[in-house]
């Protein structure tokens, strides 16, 4: 089962990835081959088998106490920011 160019465009948009026209056929073909490999899974009988999201059985989520442990380090963290003004991270205008 092959993916079409349209399928790949839709996926690329969901994932916010720009793919150039030149690159597109390569992705269509390689994604199609990958999908062929994963389609093998349909041959396995998994009736009554629970999906396994975590490799460790019997582990459960720890609860942490409701205590403030962090303080303000925004100057240090914002050194990595591409664009900051008045402490805010800037992005192109968002229209709501």
């Amino acid at each position, binding site marked *: 089962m092959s993916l079409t160019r349209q399928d790949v465009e839709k996926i690329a948009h969901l994932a916010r990835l720009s793919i150039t026209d030149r690159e597109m056929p390569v992705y269509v073909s390689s994604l199609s081959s990958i999908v062929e490999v*994963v389609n093998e899974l349909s041959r396995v009988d*998994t009736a009554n088998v*629970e999906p396994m999201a975590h*490799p460790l059985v019997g582990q459960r989520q720890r609860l942490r106490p409701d205590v403030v442990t962090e303080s303000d380090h925004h100057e240090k963290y914002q050194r990595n920011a591409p664009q900051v003004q008045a402490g805010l991270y800037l992005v*192109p205008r*968002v229209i709501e």
Partner: protein
Amino acid sequence: MLHDLSIGELADRLAARELSSVELTRHFLARIERLNPGLNAVITVTAEEALAAAARADARLAAGERGALLGIPIIHKDIFCTDGVRTSCGSRMLDNFIAPYDATVVAKLKAAGVVMLGKANMDEFAMGSSNETSFYGPVRNPWDRTKVPGGSSGGSAAASAARLAPFSTGTDTGGSIRQPAALTGITGIKPTYGRVSRYGMIAFASSLDQAGVLAQSAADAATALKVIAGFDPKDSTSVDAQVPDYPALLNVPLKGLKIGLLREFFEGLEPRNAKLIRDALAVFTSLGAETLEVSLPHLPMSVPTYYVVAPAECSSNLSRFDGVRYGYRCEGPKDLTDLYERSRGEGFGAEVKRRIMTGTYVLSAGYFDAYYLKAQRVRRLITDDFRAAFDKVDLLAGPTTPTPAFAIGAKIDDPVTMYLNDIYTIGANLAGLPGVSAPCGFVDGLPLGLQLIGPHFAEAKLLGAVHQFQLATDWHTHRPRGYE
């Protein structure tokens, strides 16, 4: 030569003050300067910080403090956040990223007194089996520089194999420690899922990733594992279980140890490779172990399973790279969508984009049940197969890879062929099991690795078995020509 010594021997000499950490550090920094250009194993060298750390270690040693890793140099895979030092994850997306904190693994090793020499090259975002997807260019295998070292911890493996440092850290999601260790003739361990903290380790596939080490021997790996293992409250998936004293448990008697040989691993193996593996296994039996054939019937499904689960998780984990708070941002974005699409489209390489898109696809409406849920069900079947096998045997054994190192550029155009390199290693990640690769011979001058897989938290048994093997053999002492 200093770089021929084991971590234990180095620690002894440092303790006896026959050697200073600064001297040792200078020695390895000089090797990096001379030898790294031909390998491209190290992408950031932290010479000044290393010498400062070495001086601090020397002060601690002078004050009478002793520690198995105190003053010992290390190279960290560039996937671990290192405070104040660039952490690129092999990607243009993080080429300008200075981590503002230390990963727990880094912090623990720092506290133990290691001296970080630099950050190792790797497949971009840990996605790859050849270290050819790095933004910083491919890493070369010191045994043959036209060949790949494996991946994704290719830089760590090449650095350890070439003795640019006594040991290095790596991560293993589908084999990324074990496979490069096998292709470069060193000993690599992927611990049980949850044994080592993932905090600060840039996430690829959260339910599969685990941190480990690439070292010269099981003994050295044991020393390092003892320091990095342990519960971390900052990682919800970290297991709160006591860490055994691995170095003290290496003298595991192999008598009566039952080693399962996976039929699925030996099927289709090239005769010369198969022979090396069987010869290695013969060493185990000569030491008193028994081998039995076992079968994990669902194991052949591990590649399709992995290539649903890992991309699904990574497609979500990598959504945070959007050009807003850190990392690469495209020039002149015209609106928000453009900012996201071009920052990510330009910042990520092709393999990363492929996996993000695969993951997005298998999670998307209409496909979720057929792919993601299905894969997680098959994952349970694979895990159950392993559990059933471990009812009959103590450890499983087989080759780490189907072949020794292949040529740079040989497989990069076909992702599926590349994915099949992971065929022997992926199962352990899906089931969260610990695995080790140890060198067991050469084919056409290139190293081959023997893989042992154990049940959960069997690291001591694994390292002990390999240690006994390494006492009886000397594959792990061979050096690549030019790197003696």
